[in-house]
């Protein structure tokens, strides 16, 4: 993607963010809530103050960017990984276990937690990759089944092996300070995970565009038959590694959420980050650097919606409706671009 097209995409992202906010408010008004008050809460919760931006929007955007990168990597390779949610939960669980178990000098507990999180996500995605490569099980079905498995396993862990010592609440003990991500801006909740997400997005774009491995991944995603026959690409290996890599990123998202925000494992740790990540990746046009921008849009939307629930009593689950509508609009726009609905060109010329 050239710089010129990035500019166009950024405009689209900003416009979509505006449309999404308007959709949300339209639904809020239709449902009979106090719309001006809801708008105030939405804007205030997302951008109202420096703390709203740092501790609200950016903190919410962090797992969305990481999970969005996970979806981007998979989709670019032609792998329909819609199991980022389960991989994220596995990463959160593994990071908690390691963060609680490992004590030691300096950053060792934190590094162990993050590494375990990455490995946890990789294992879950690896199962799906293996089922695809060895048995031809559809990505969509295996990843959806694994989402359920991960949810139940986390539900068990927080009542069993990882439950807090008093055994009252269904959650783990809190991570020690040495296993927590450092705060970036003193006085806010913004943690190092945001910086990691931004750097990974930049590296991802460079890797996809400029390296031979990135080229093989893109070629496999665009046309696996051509990549294998004309390009000599071992497409099976490429898709398997893209799947596992995608799981690693989603696992890191879970690990970062535990070590940077919640400091403990509990059941509803993720309000569907793994599914929102699909909207995040699609809106970015599957371009890693732009995932930062789309993660911010949805992070702002979710931070604003939380404030809306708190201050105006509007159910924040409405954001899921808006996300669904955004995904629908995006697939329709993409389809329209392919079929030449927006131009006078024939479908053949547009292809």
């Amino acid at each position: 993607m050239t710089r010129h097209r990035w500019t166009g995409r950024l405009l689209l992202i900003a416009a979509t963010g505006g449309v999404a906010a308007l959709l949300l408010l339209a639904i809020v008004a239709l449902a009979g809530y106090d719309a001006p008050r809801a708008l105030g809460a939405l804007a205030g919760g997302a951008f109202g103050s420096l703390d709203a931006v740092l501790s609200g929007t950016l903190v919410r955007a962090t797992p969305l960017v990481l999970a969005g990168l996970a979806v981007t990597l998979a989709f670019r390779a032609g792998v329909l990984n819609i199991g980022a949610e389960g991989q994220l939960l596995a990463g959160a669980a593994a990071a908690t276990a390691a963060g609680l178990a490992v004590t030691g000098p300096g950053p060792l507990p934190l590094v162990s937690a993050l590494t375990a999180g990455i490995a946890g996500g990789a294992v879950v995605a690896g199962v799906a990759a293996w089922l695809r490569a060895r048995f031809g099980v559809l990505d969509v079905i295996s990843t959806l089944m694994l989402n359920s498995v991960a949810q139940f396993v986390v539900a068990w862990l927080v009542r069993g092996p990882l439950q807090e010592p008093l055994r009252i609440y269904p959650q783990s003990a809190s991570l020690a300070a040495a296993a927590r991500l450092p705060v970036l801006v003193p006085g806010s909740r913004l943690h190092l995970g945001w910086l990691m997400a931004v750097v990974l997005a930049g590296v991802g774009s460079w890797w996809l565009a400029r390296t031979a491995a990135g080229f093989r991944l893109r070629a496999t995603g665009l046309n696996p038959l051509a990549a294998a026959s004309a390009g000599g690409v071992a497409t099976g290996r490429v898709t398997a590694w893209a799947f596992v890599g995608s799981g690693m990123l989603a696992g890191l998202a879970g690990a970062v959420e535990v070590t940077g925000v919640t400091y403990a494992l509990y059941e509803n740790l993720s309000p569907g980050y793994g599914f929102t990540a699909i909207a995040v990746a699609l809106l970015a046009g599957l371009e890693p650097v732009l995932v930062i921008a789309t993660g911010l849009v949805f992070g702002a939307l979710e931070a604003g919606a939380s404030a809306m629930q708190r201050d105006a009593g509007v159910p924040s689950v409405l954001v899921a409706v808006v996300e669904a509508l955004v995904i629908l609009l995006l697939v329709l726009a993409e389809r329209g671009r392919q079929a030449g609905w927006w131009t006078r060109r024939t479908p053949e010329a547009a292809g």
Partner: protein
Amino acid sequence: MADALTGFLEAAVRTATPLAFAAMGETIAERAGVINVGLEGCVMAGAFGALVAAGAGGVGAGFATSAVAGAALAALFALCVVRLGTDQIITGTAMTLLGLGGTGALYRTWYGAGGAALSVPTAGPMAVPGLSKLPVVGPAFFSQPVVTYLAALLVPVLWWFLYRTHAGLALRAVGEAPEAARAAGVATARLRTLAVVAGGALGGLAGGTLVLAQAGTFAEGMSAGRGFVAIAIVVLGRWHPVGAALGALVFGAATALQFLIQAMGWTLPYQLFLALPYVLTLGALALARGRGRPPAALGQASG
């Protein structure tokens, strides 16, 4: 032990009923060449429709509304996928989000943020005269809510429709070779749309069953992945209505295993029992490799 066995069979059939509806619905859609990942959303739409209508008009109205609600969401999906040619998986994922988020938001708006457990009228068990007195199997199979018998009846009806009627042949042709079907004068887009909508109606009925014949109340996200399980069951059932029903029963049995194992004195954490059927489904999908074949045009944009 006989009591435990009866409990096991009864729970297996109870769990299987909504799955059988959803899996047969998905079978219809996939046989026409459309994979509807939004089925989970249809199940939720059906569950919420059942809650709203049963409170006002009783159990019958609840079931009817659940089917209509599932069909409505599926119609939106069909519009995008069949008429406009969008990607089936992504569009289906959006439908699932829409169904889950939409019902959650409406529930909190209409019934209060606290989400106090509402109880709705339920369809009680209907004993089949004579058969329900049989030892062990009687209470398990013949003392179920009326929808369970409806699900069982749907199996031969759907088989007859798909394999013994002209419309069923046309539907299968659309899923295998849409171009050839169109050349033979079949209105492919209309048939695909109808198949998806019918599948969504059955998905909605699955949600209605959860509310009106099992839980007796509504909870956000109560479909708990059943729509996704149904999609896996369709693969295991080799895109055949009998296979779909059998697959639902096997999944129900795997879920109900906890009753048997607890009766034998083993203890395994409850949550791991809940995860077990999903693991078994994955294993079964792996072993089912090469047996049966998806409809040739499954997942492709309508040609």
